[in-house]
């Protein structure tokens, strides 16, 4: 083989390699990685992050409220007030016996007089003599299943015990449910606002992209492209931006949820934070929060793509 042949072969191989490089991965018709595109990705990431945080907060409140309601509904309280001429201890024992015989009751705990008196310490202080006070006696009745337990029958039969009343915490549960529902609705409203803001951002960004890609649209028209083809190209461009931004925001929210789970839970083990724990449980976002964040990322991406498609059609119609 002569030097000329060798040089020719090298040239041919180089040409083929260049050709493969040039043709192996066609560039998008709408330029990627522009300043406007990157800015929109950041906006979508922030919107997606806020939407995921809102969803996380909503699931947190909803889970805490559900736990609260379950805890409250699994227990009813019998109160036996001191009545003149009636032995309160005997009445308490009778009420406890009635409770034990009721269907769906898993346990009955009679609080001692000392325990009852201790409940008054926040108001009366420590070291007071409770023996002279007409303190009602309390019986905590634990239910196996709040739905199957015959609480109504228990209330009817307790009428036979003088001074005994039954508190099934329904008023509390109803208020709690209302509060939780209101929070969830507020969260969903915020989520909707975030989505609307995302759509508007995409509309403006798409119009900006159409203006800056006027040449691309003109050249595609020269080549005989239909509006549907142009819209598809822009839709694909914005779908990629939406996916990138959406998943970045969702990932950031997921990391924040995990950090809250790992860092805040140990900090809430102290006695000072009992009330917060009681309100928000373990302050950990459940699987719904994580899967919801993933869903939001997809939703934001699809919404971005569809919005851009519609905007492109509108833009092309206006420039007819």
């Amino acid at each position, binding site marked *: 083989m002569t030097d000329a042949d060798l040089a020719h072969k090298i040239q041919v191989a180089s*040409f083929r390699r260049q*050709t493969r490089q*040039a*043709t192996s991965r066609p560039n998008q018709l709408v330029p990627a990685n522009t300043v406007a595109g990157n800015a929109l990705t950041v906006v979508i990431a922030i919107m997606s992050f806020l939407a995921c945080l809102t969803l996380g907060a909503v699931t947190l409140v909803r889970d805490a409220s559900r736990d609260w309601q379950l805890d409250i509904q699994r227990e009813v309280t019998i109160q036996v007030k001191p009545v003149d001429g009636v032995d309160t201890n005997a009445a308490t024992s009778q009420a406890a016996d009635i409770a034990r015989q009721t269907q769906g009751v898993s346990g009955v705990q009679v609080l001692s007089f000392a325990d009852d008196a201790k409940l008054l310490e926040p108001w009366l202080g420590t070291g007071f003599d409770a023996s002279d006070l007409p303190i009602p006696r309390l019986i905590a009745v634990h239910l196996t299943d709040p739905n199957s337990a015959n609480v109504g029958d228990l209330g009817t039969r307790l009428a036979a015990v003088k001074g005994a009343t039954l508190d099934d915490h329904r008023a509390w549960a109803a208020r709690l449910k209302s509060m939780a529902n209101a929070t969830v609705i507020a969260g969903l409203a915020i989520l909707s606002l975030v989505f609307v803001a995302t759509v508007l951002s995409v509309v403006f960004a798409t119009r900006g992209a159409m203006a800056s890609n006027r040449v691309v649209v003109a*050249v595609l028209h*020269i*080549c*005989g492209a239909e509006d549907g083809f142009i819209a598809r190209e822009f839709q694909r461009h914005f779908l990629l931006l939406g996916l990138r931004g959406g998943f970045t925001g969702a990932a950031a929210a997921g990391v924040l949820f995990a950090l809250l789970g790992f860092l805040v839970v140990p900090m809430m083990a102290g006695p000072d934070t009992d009330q917060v724990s009681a309100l928000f449980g373990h302050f950990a976002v459940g699987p719904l929060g994580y899967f919801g964040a993933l869903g939001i990322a997809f939703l934001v991406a699809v919404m971005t793509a569809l919005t851009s498609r519609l905007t492109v059609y509108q833009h092309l119609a206006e420039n007819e």
Partner: protein
Amino acid sequence: MIRFENVGLRYGVGPEVLRDLTFDITPKSFQFLTGPSGAGKTSLIRLMFLALRPTRGLISIFSREVSSLTKAELPALHRRIGVVFQDFRLLDHLTTFENVALPFRVLGREEPSYRADVIDLLRWVGLGDRVHAFPPVLSGGEKQRAAIARALITRPELLLADEPTGNVDPPLAKRLMRLFIELNKLGTSVIIATHDIGLMNQFEARRLVLEEGRLMIYD
């Protein structure tokens, strides 16, 4: 193929830039469109490419009355016309290969089906070693050749070229003209707008001469 009858064109409320144009472009014909700068050559090219609508008169293209065309019908007609603009209109973020292959992408064809054709044509116009170069690094002549290649790649029925040899040296201009003539022999009607008298004198072809918006035809 193209028929103009008493066509006039004005931009806005300005004077008519094209007046009373009446002519035919027959299938498989070859013609030069010439005239001084500002005579309206580019406007006439744009009318023939359906990028403009006439102010008055009738234009029919491929036996279709232009005034009755809907927007949805334009892409199909554009695909039958290859056009080379003075400003090339290449996309800077696409390689030379991708720019030339654009009409195939618009048609929805897969790359393996047209790769060889595009490479062959690029080599023919002298851009074989610029396949993966981007337009910003191409010279004016190279951009022009890439624009010509894009217009020719799908072998359109009609080729409209606005000053296609304006940025290339005479030997390459002659070579490109031979390419247009070959294309014409294969059945494409060719209209080349130029004011290069020397180039026109080298080839015997019909001449459409625009002067102050009016057209004279020298068969």
